[in-house]
């Protein structure tokens, strides 16, 4: 397992707003024997046990229907595990009440294949939205929105609406929104799934920078090129169980 990124100490993570003491070591995600059966009877996860530490960059690979999206949905509280223990960023997701889910979400940034931007809002408004929700002050919102837009290279497109942007630019807006609230964890479900290879590399570059600044990243992907080029921890899922967990791993499938 990677020693360089895995054991990141809190004071090495300038972007994190956290109430942990300097020098603490934390596990970002801890799953034990997690199972998920959907109401229709499909068993999407069949006993997942895994630890992911603060600062790690993890690829989630596996064929369609393997359970990657389900794994991700359980992490941000979109689905509830049917059995097992799940702890994410200090929240106990199994014993958590529904009304605590918003608090969990504020610690996690989420990015999807389909961007999920609001078409009627400008780029600026789409990002500011995430900060309004947590009742940030207007002054801080203005400052932070421009900061994250700068970080994803879209400062000059703040007044555009999503339809006026390319797919890659839209995904960058989504990433800006996801990191606006200083999340400890960024999860991305096939963030490059709708993008051409060149654009995908741009997105990967941004994700790497975010990770370098200390945010843990979990990314489900089908891109053999990316996984085999930017070598990171690879967790392979098949039929709802982890079949491989490899530091600086390969994609391992013919794509």
């Amino acid at each position, binding site marked *: 397992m990677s020693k360089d990124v895995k054991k990141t100490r809190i004071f090495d993570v300038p972007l994190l707003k956290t109430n942990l003491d300097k020098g603490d070591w934390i596990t970002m995600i801890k799953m034990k024997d997690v199972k998920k059966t959907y109401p229709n009877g499909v068993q999407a996860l069949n006993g997942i046990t895994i630890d992911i530490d603060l600062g790690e960059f993890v690829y989630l690979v596996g064929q369609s229907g393997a359970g990657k999206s389900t794994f991700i949905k359980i992490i*941000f509280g979109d689905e509830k595990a049917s059995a097992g223990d799940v702890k994410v960023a200090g929240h106990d997701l199994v014993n958590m009440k529904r*009304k605590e889910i918003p608090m969990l979400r504020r610690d996690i940034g989420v990015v999807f294949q389909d961007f*999920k931007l609001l078409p009627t809002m400008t780029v600026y408004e789409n990002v500011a939205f995430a900060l309004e929700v*947590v009742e940030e002050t207007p002054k801080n919102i203005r400052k932070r929105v421009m900061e994250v837009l700068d970080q994803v290279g879209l400062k000059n497109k703040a007044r555009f609406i999503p339809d006026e942007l390319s797919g890659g630019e839209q995904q960058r807006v989504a990433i800006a929104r996801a990191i606006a609230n200083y999340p400890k964890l960024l999860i991305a479900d096939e963030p490059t799934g709708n993008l051409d290879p060149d654009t995908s590399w741009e997105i990967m570059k941004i994700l790497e920078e975010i990770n370098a600044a200390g945010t843990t990243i979990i990314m489900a992907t089908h891109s053999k090129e990316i996984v085999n080029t930017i070598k990171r921890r690879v967790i392979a899922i098949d039929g709802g169980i982890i079949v491989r967990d490899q530091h600086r791993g390969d994609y391992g499938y013919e794509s």
Partner: protein
Amino acid sequence: MRARTFKRHIREGFKNTWRNSWMTLASIGAVTTTLILVGAFLVLLLNINHIAENLEEDVEIKVLVDLTANEEETIAVGEAIERLDNIQSVTFSTKEEELERLMSGLGDEGDVFGLIDQENPLNDAYVVKLVDPTETVNVAEEIATFDHVEDVNFGEDFVQNLFDFNAYARNIGLVLIVALVFTAIFLISNTIKITIFARRKEIEIMQLVGATKWFIRWPFFVEGLLLGFLGSLVPIGFIVGGYYYLEQNIVAVNQFDFVTLIPFAPFVWQVSGIVVMIGVVIGVWGSVMSVRKFLKI
């Protein structure tokens, strides 16, 4: 909630109302239609009630004393009546007074009958008013059993029918108003549901970035409030204008003094207040109900 957030919810509520203008118009239309009906029913119902109460107040029992009864016996009848429960007033009326009243009621025609020239055929009478007029039938029946009472007279059928009708009118009116209000809530919640369906992406994203349930709900609350208020404006115009017209014209043609409408002020303003309140309740309820379905957390 912070003042800033409160302002934001109000701003968002107004913005959404404006942005979804077609749905806003449809919702306002639904509220307006309902409130016009509710308002009309309310005015009708309250006036029926008012007229009914007037009529009830006019209901009196006339107790005819035996022609053979002497003065003491006549007084005894009056005292016996006064001892009953529920008596508001007992007025004695001599046979001469009764004749006079009858004649003036008949007007000039009284002379034609030549009543004046004949011996007075009428009885001495007590006119009894009750505190609770709905007890008229029972009290009259009891008085009829007293000694030296020849007959009691209270327009039996009319009184019973009046009380039955009043009770019906009140109940049916209430049921209709409640049914109308629920229909409106259903209409609004469906109309708003369509707009929310279009906005479910917005709700989904808000939840994704950690918005609480109430943070999402508040703008819809404001929107419902606004829709209810806007929807009540036209109905209030109808009520005020319509009632003014009605009052002017009914008063002009009114020959029956028991058909008096409730005076214009403050009645119309009270009804308008009730209509706004119902509108706001309908709007808020419909709006908040319709957003519930899309709140996953």
